[in-house]
């Protein structure tokens, strides 16, 4: 489907009205809105001044007051739902967590548990209607009800683990009591979301229907017309401690692979809880409260929550309407193909130009694969592919609101492409280059309108790497930068605004790390040891593997460009790197780089190496981040941390490179850099910016 088809009739009719019984949501400033009709009580959650419900202290206290009334004057049935079109509830209000002491937190948890226990104990049927997402504490409220009606499109999940926590309002014992405990543990350990059909299969949802039939479904439940399996049948198999121990061992080893206990304690704590108390809900409940409060205090959880808010900030920067309907991408190479496919998948009408037909064809099959990886239905995939038009003749140029140039990294070629655009581009259209190694100031002269020319630096693969650097040169119009940031938001990527500096922010910071790894290899340190040290620090993969994945030719190009443009001492470019590139062993894409990729991704696992191995790689990265901050390449410490986490996977549990530096102590780092400078040379000279950090 090319573009949007919504017509005037649907626009006029608007969203389907939510069935809220006698309650008119939005009235008043309480969180819960109560109404009684035909002896059924409706409790509609609709917090003031927000588009998404979050379970806060107020929500819990107001619910307690409502439950009081229900206990005194029991109705025929209770219906709980959200009055927000966006969904049920996005989880707990974690912003409130930071201001609370551990005791306050425990108090609040106890209050919450008490009210949910009383809700669960009500004698009348209690029915939770879920539309949109019911996450974390939202799902815990739903689990305390007898019945769950899922409106088609509803989803259920416990994402706490992503914040270094596990469920804390009874989820750890209510979910395994309701559904197959191994499925329950999987949901909580992975933080994954169960969509409507999956939720029905798991037994999370008792009734699946459309919004227009919600009232009829409630009446059917109240009239006892719905059959369902007795919940908790599968839980019995795990009443035996030995069965749980066996299962817990398996869960531990799986979890350890993705989330080592030292770095990510929460999932391991959850497995311990279940193994110990899986057959005793009361014991599990008090252990859950204690464990949750303890996790909340860990550095990991604090840092992951910080990262969550950093991500929200970047998202907020791109939230407004971008005014970009049609995008033309130039160049169907690895990056251009990914950018085009991703933008089409996210709803943009995209034309993709290339002088060769073959890469255009390959892009279509790549796009189909990305759709599959993103779990799109066959119709959604068809629509996404319809929006992605291979455009060998460049018809899309004249209609595009945004042109993204992703041609090979040679200035001559890019300039030639730009000059061919000058009489074709639509008035007001933006031209953005995906260059990673060239300077915008050198290219802008060839752009049809330098003020409407900027950088839009994506990371490979676009479908997995969330960050995009929105790069301005000193003549780029503000409005252009704003719209590019919003474009990133519209295609579900995270924009960070940077200036035209060699390597911008991310490559400037990452390159010394990769180059130092090659220097270490030249010194005779095994690449497996180098990579293992980085992984032990918390990086998703080691620098040697990463170089192979990025492409050694691109690494060399960026390294050369940085070395020549920066008046800073850099690690010498390794001869081995040049030899590999010359031999065509350019890494993953060639099947061979420093590693042999023919049998898939390498998993280096070798301890040892010099004692300053990790610092030699990590500290230059921090040093370069400080340089970028000093040079105003990036606006803030927070943006720097977010960019490095979402572009390179920099250990999220450490909260980002600058946060890590502050945690370790600026003085300690300066001392270590001095020390490394003495041992290894001037590339470790501390940046003058450290004193302002």
């Amino acid at each position, binding site marked *: 489907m090319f573009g949007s088809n919504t017509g005037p009739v649907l626009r006029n009719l608007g969203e389907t009205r939510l069935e809220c019984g006698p309650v008119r949501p939005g009235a008043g400033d309480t969180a819960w809105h109560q109404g009684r009709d035909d002896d059924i009580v409706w409790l509609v959650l609709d917090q003031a001044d927000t588009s998404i419900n979050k379970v806060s202290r107020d929500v819990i206290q107001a619910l307690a007051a409502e439950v009081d009334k229900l206990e005194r004057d029991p109705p025929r049935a209770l219906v709980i739902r959200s009055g927000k079109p966006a969904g049920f509830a996005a989880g707990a209000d974690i912003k409130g967590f930071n201001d609370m002491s551990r005791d306050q937190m425990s108090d609040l948890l106890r209050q919450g548990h008490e009210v949910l226990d009383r809700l669960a104990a009500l004698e009348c049927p209690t029915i939770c209607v879920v539309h949109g997402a019911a996450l974390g504490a939202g799902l815990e409220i739903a689990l305390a009800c007898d019945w769950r009606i899922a409106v088609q499109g509803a989803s259920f999940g416990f994402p706490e683990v992503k914040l270094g926590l596990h469920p804390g309002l009874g989820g750890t014992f209510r979910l395994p009591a309701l559904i197959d405990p191994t499925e329950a543990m999987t949901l909580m350990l992975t933080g994954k979301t169960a969509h409507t059909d999956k939720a029905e299969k798991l037994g999370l949802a008792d009734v699946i229907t459309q919004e227009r039939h919600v009232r009829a479904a409630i009446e059917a439940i109240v009239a006892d017309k719905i059959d369902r399996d007795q919940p908790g049948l599968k839980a019995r198999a795990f009443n035996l401690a030995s069965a749980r121990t066996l299962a817990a061992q398996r869960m531990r080893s799986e979890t350890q692979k993705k989330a080592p206990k030292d770095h990510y304690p929460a999932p391991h704590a959850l497995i311990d809880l279940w193994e110990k108390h899986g057959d005793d809900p009361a014991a599990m409940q008090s252990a859950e409260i204690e464990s949750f409060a303890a996790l909340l205090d860990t550095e990991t959880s604090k840092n992951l929550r910080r990262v969550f808010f950093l991500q929200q900030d970047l998202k907020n920067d791109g939230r407004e309407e971008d005014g970009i309907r049609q995008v033309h991408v130039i160049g169907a190479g690895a990056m251009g193909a990914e950018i085009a496919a991703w933008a089409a998948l996210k709803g943009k009408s995209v034309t993709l130009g290339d002088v060769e037909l073959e890469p255009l064809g390959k892009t279509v099959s790549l796009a189909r694969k990305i759709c599959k990886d993103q779990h799109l239905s066959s119709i959604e995939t068809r629509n996404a592919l319809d929006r992605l038009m291979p*455009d060998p003749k460049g018809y899309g140029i004249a209609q595009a609101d945004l042109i993204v140039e992703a041609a090979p990294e040679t200035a001559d070629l890019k300039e030639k492409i730009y000059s061919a655009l000058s009489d074709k581009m639509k008035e007001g259209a933006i031209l953005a280059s995906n260059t990673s190694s060239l300077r915008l100031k050198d290219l802008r002269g060839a752009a049809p309108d330098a003020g409407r020319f900027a950088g839009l630096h994506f990371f490979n693969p676009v479908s997995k790497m969330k960050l995009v650097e929105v790069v301005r040169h000193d003549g780029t119009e503000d409005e252009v930068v704003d719209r590019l940031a919003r474009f990133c938001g519209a295609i579900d990527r995270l924009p960070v605004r940077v200036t035209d500096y060699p390597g911008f922010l991310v490559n400037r910071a990452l390159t010394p790390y990769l180059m130092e790894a090659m220097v270490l290899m030249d010194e005779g340190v095994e690449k497996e040891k180098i990579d293992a040290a980085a992984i032990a620090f918390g990086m998703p993969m080691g620098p040697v593997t990463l170089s192979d994945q990025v492409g050694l030719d691109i690494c060399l190009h960026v390294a050369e460009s940085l070395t020549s443009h920066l008046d800073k001492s850099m690690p010498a470019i390794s001869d081995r790197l040049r030899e590999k590139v010359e031999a065509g062993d350019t890494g993953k894409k060639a099947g061979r780089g420093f590693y042999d990729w023919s049998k898939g991704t390498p998993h280096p696992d070798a301890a040892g190496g010099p004692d300053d191995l990790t610092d030699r790689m990590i500290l230059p990265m921090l040093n370069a981040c400080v340089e970028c901050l000093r040079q105003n390449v990036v606006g803030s410490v927070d943006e720097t941390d977010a960019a490095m986490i979402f572009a390179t996977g920099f250990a999220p549990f450490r909260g980002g490179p600058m946060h890590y530096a502050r945690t370790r102590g600026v003085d300690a780092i300066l001392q270590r850099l001095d020390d490394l400078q003495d041992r290894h040379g001037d590339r470790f000279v501390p940046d003058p910016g450290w004193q302002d950090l």
Partner: protein
Amino acid sequence: MTRPVYLVDGARTPFLKARGTPGPFTPVDLAVECGRPLLTRQPFDRRALDLVILGCVNVLQDEMNPARVAALRLGLGADMVAFTMQINCGSGMQSIDTAYRYVRDGSHDMILAGGTEALSHAPLVLRQSAVEWFGEMAQAKDIMDKAKALTGLRPEFFKPILGLERGLTDPITTLNMGQTAEILAHRFGIDRTAADTYAMQSHHRLAQAQKKNWLDDEVMPAFSKDGTVHEHDDGVRPDSDLDGLAKPKPAFEPPYGKVTAGNSSQITDGASWVIVASEAAVEKYGLTPLARIVDSQWAALDPSVMGLGPVLASTPIVARHDLGLDDIDLWEINEAFAAQVLACLAAWEDDAFCRDVLELDGAFGRIDRDRLNIDGGAISLGHPVGTSGNRIVLHLANALKRRGKVRGIATECIGGGQGGALLLEAA
């Protein structure tokens, strides 16, 4: 004075030969493949179109009213009216003619008119006896009834019939389309060599047009989901020669027939669109028309000689505008069969035929081969039935422009005994 009507642009997919299994594209996929680039290269917002008309004969169950499905997939908006037309082999021209009449009447300003067909997707059809058996099984109330019904099961129920084969058989005369061509070959004295020679030229002409990039703005590469690029019409045989063409046995009436797979149109998938616009639309959007649509005509005749449809449809246009043989610079006569095209030419040269049937004063004359199907036709390109009528109009417009000529007729025979024709003039 009637309002002028313009054909402003058009594009089609490559025509892809059916190779035994369903091809990579459904009818709507094909319409989207060529519709996207066509609409993207226009200076106007695609939602400025008033209407979508699409010819399609073999509609898939998943794509009822393919015109509407294509309109939505092309992003023309929920409020875009779209309907599908079917007059068998004339469907793709019927859509243009309908658009032409709507615009001429002043009710519409800009219409997307196309044709699409995926003959490789033609369904396997159950025998009537099998359908009845399935019905009985479904209605059987208890085990006994079911057991009774089960005894009626026959092995031939599982031998489905090619829907395509049935579609190419005339239901009135029970003649296959190829047999109607045999009748014409016999009545107008077309021998095997003449038919083969015509077929060979068709291949050579298309090969030349491809080589010289004459089809560049007309044929848009199609990209299938597995990444395969279909750049050109793939049924062409540039090295086709008479020896090769002499080899295949008569396909429809062996052993003595003249019509072979080699001198018949190919079974193919493909789609084609044109944009039909009023003068007001041309001015409003600053469009450069390819041609002006001047007149149209449909005719019907005995189904067993359906191949003469072009003669019956074109001649009234020529007569209405007082045009002689030399006034028509270019002809596109859809090449259902070489013998059928040659029979049309022979009929126009036949004094008695022209007097008695066409009510002319005498023979219309001999159409110069240099003015007829100058870049090949359905024998080399293929004949996706719902599409061909659209393609010949589009190609005629492009060919007139390329040669700087003034006037041309695109015409086709239609299974079931009809013919359609459209007169274009340089814009």
